[in-house]
């Protein structure tokens, strides 16, 4: 299993992401955004969290024009796996690989806490190790995580099983933590090979971190 983790100016979760996949036994490489090509023979591209280009203009708006992103779009369109975490999710929506957009949180706060999230669909590689309706505890840390899509698009992603995760309370009831429509915390594309989520699974991979639920998510790619 070979994983490429992208690094843009301002990315700050690439080392945690590298560590998480290395712990799972993957061969991980960090790739600078100015590269024109992805390394040969990789099985997964991860866009890690952070503040690419200082979140100037909109989160992810400038990173999507980095040279490496052309290669990522090609790679995704060939049906290969791409995962965007937090700022990576924002970049994937900006470039159009994932539907919708991420707006400023409704309460205008940067929300940084452990959050319960519910698995909605597991008929995809990413969440294949989780059960549907399972409640996971994963850290979130974002100011722009308020998922928006027009009503037609929302119907479409809900009926296609593209909604991966919802924020929920400890009983599993949807929770309006940041204003996301239908409490959406993560989505995938129609082909179910491009995934994006605001929570940080790479920060929940060891007991000492307070949760190991993120490991279960990332393990989906390892089989």
């Amino acid at each position, binding site marked *: 299993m070979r994983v490429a983790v992208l690094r843009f100016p301002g990315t700050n979760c690439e080392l945690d992401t590298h560590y998480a996949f290395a712990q799972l036994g993957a061969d991980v490489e960090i790739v600078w955004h100015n590269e024109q090509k992805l390394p040969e023979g990789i099985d997964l591209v991860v866009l890690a969290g952070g503040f690419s280009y200082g979140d100037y*203009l*909109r989160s992810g*708006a*400038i990173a999507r*024009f980095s040279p490496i992103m052309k290669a990522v779009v090609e790679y995704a369109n060939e049906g290969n796996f791409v995962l965007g975490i937090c700022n990576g999710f924002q970049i994937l*929506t*900006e470039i159009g690989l994932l539907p*919708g*957009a991420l*707006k*400023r*949180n*409704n*309460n*205008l706060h940067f929300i940084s806490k452990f959050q319960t999230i519910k698995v909605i669909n597991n008929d995809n590689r990413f969440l294949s190790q989780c059960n549907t309706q399972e409640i996971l505890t994963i850290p979130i840390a974002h100011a722009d995580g*308020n998922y*928006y*899509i*027009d009503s037609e698009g929302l119907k479409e992603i809900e009926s296609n099983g593209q909604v991966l995760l919802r924020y929920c309370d400890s009983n599993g009831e949807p929770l309006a933590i940041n*204003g996301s429509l239908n409490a959406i915390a993560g989505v995938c594309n129609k082909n179910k090979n491009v995934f994006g989520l605001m929570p940080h699974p790479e920060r929940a991979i060891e007991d000492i971190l307070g949760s190991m639920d993120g490991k279960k998510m990332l393990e989906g790619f390892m089989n």
Partner: protein
Amino acid sequence: MRAIVNVYLKEGVLDPQGKAIAHALDSLGFGELVKGVRVGKQMVLELNSTDEASAKIEVEKMCETLLANTVIEDYTIEF
């Protein structure tokens, strides 16, 4: 020549910043007058051109590709 680009969240897309400002204006006593507030971004582009028509086409392209996210935002262009 100068092009002024204004970017706003679309009508119908909840604007949390605008709402917070409207709330603050209300608590300052302007609530009766102020029906609503929308927050936008203004970008002022200094252009190497004197031809407004052709520049407008180019600035529109800039808005569609970078300056606005048309999933959630509308834009206006003024010269």
